């Protein structure tokens, strides 16, 4: 599903964020990406949905090398991937419903289908009753649930989350985590970068630890394994 071969990323300012990564993630897996700040987690995650392009190496997603993907084909590629951010990235001028529908409008889906599908995912994240509210009227956890709804509304095969619980209190983080578990049991691959030790150690999944741009540990049902 996702495969990286000898991937290296050097930024123009000379910083080498990723230094020779080989990894394979299969369909239906749940993967935590852990590591200290500045270790290259974010770059690793961003390369998966092609916000960053590796300096060298191959990144295969569904058999296509996205490291060599033409600019024109990037949008089509991204439609198969859901992305969730730490800061939610919702559009403040749009309602909850509109924010989720946006992802389908952009790919010019049929309006009838959009309506049905958006209510479906809002139900999944338990926000059906707040569909008409504005993001600013919601709590952080609720906003993140909207963001997750948006990421899965076009039924992607993989959802990539960059510290989705980073801004949330422990209880809310669990709510979010449960949604990801739910998505995963429905067959969607989930890749999640996180600093949340409790979650990683409780809901056991594969753990990939990154330090100084390299994978230092890759365990099925692993532990968080860091202090702090």
């Amino acid at each position, binding site marked *: 599903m996702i495969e990286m071969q000898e991937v290296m990323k050097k930024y123009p300012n000379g910083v080498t964020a990723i230094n020779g990564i080989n990894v394979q993630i299969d369909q239906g897996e749940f993967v935590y990406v852990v590591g200290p700040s500045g270790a290259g987690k974010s770059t690793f995650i961003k390369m998966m949905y092609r916000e960053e392009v590796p300096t060298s190496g191959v990144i295969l997603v569904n*058999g296509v090398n996205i490291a060599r993907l033409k600019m*024109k084909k990037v949008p*089509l590629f991204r*439609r198969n991937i859901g992305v969730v951010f730490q800061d939610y990235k919702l559009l403040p001028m749009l309602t909850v419903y509109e924010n989720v529908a946006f992802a389908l409008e*952009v790919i010019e889906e049929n309006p009838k289908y959009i309506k049905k599908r958006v209510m479906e995912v809002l139900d999944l994240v338990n926000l059906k009753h707040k569909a008409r509210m504005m993001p600013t009227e919601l709590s952080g956890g609720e906003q993140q649930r909207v963001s997750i709804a948006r990421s899965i509304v*076009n039924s992607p095969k993989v959802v990539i989350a960059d510290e989705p619980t980073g801004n949330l209190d422990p209880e809310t983080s669990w709510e979010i985590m449960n949604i990801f578990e739910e998505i995963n049991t429905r067959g969607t691959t989930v890749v999640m970068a996180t600093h949340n030790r409790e979650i990683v150690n409780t809901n056991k999944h594969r753990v990939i630890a990154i330090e100084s741009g390299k994978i230092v540990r890759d365990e099925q049902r692993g532990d968080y394994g860091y202090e702090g």
Partner: protein
Amino acid sequence: MNQERLYVMSSEVITVMKVRTLGRHARESFKSISRNGWMTFASVGAVTVTLILVGVFFVIMMNLNKVAQTIEEDVEIRVHIDVAANKADQQKLQNQIEQIPEVKSVKFSSKEQELKNLIKSLGDEGKTFKLFEQDNPLNDVFIVKTKKPTDTVFVANQIEKMNYAYKVKYGKGQVEKLFKFIGASRNVGLALIVGLLLTAVFLISNTIKITIVARRREIRIMKLVGATNSFIRWPFFLEGLWLGILGAILPIILVSTAYYYAYDYLEPKLKGNFMQLIPFEPFIYQVSGLLVLMGAIIGVWGSLMSVRKFLRV
């Protein structure tokens, strides 16, 4: 396999732009125009000012051209035939002139005819010249017209060298100056118009850039959920288009009104000098069409210029 299917499906999505989607883009563009308030006003103002100037210049240029054309058409070479020439010599001279490739026509005008013309053109005072009807001091004349007015000097010089061409007259000096003036004013006008257009494009692109900066987050999110560049570009494209077209309205009204009165005022005065302005009716529609088109081009160009940069996410 999966990937292939995706591309086939998606290319259909891209090539067949649905009416519904166009509607969405139009709505977005109107929203943005009203949301931007003062900036919209400023850029429409910029287009308005530019197009007023362009319109005025254009109308003046076209009329100068028209006047120049009539003057150019009036330019003729008058070849005075030597009194010593007999019929055969005259015929020979005419043949020689006709053989110059740049010559369009050669017309013979007898000295009697010339005297009549002279008397007529001088009006009452001309009557004194009637005395000369007995002993006409004028020459027979060939009136030569060239295919292109600018060939006048060249042709005249050639005729001068021929036998029995006693004098060749074409308003030496004035003709050259006139052509120079017309040529220069055309270039200056063109340069001014181009300069103004570029300024307006710059202003529009700045306005739209502000729209875009305000919506950068939105664009980024759109890109992350898989919007194509053209999908993102459309609303901005339309916004530019509306700004340009809105900016053309006032100039059209002003220029047509001004031309209507200017034509009424100037036309009778110029008629006496054998000059003509371009009639109001079809001309002003052409000018209006041109202004709308230019507004649209300026707007679209400006908007696309500023969007380009923000799409590389």
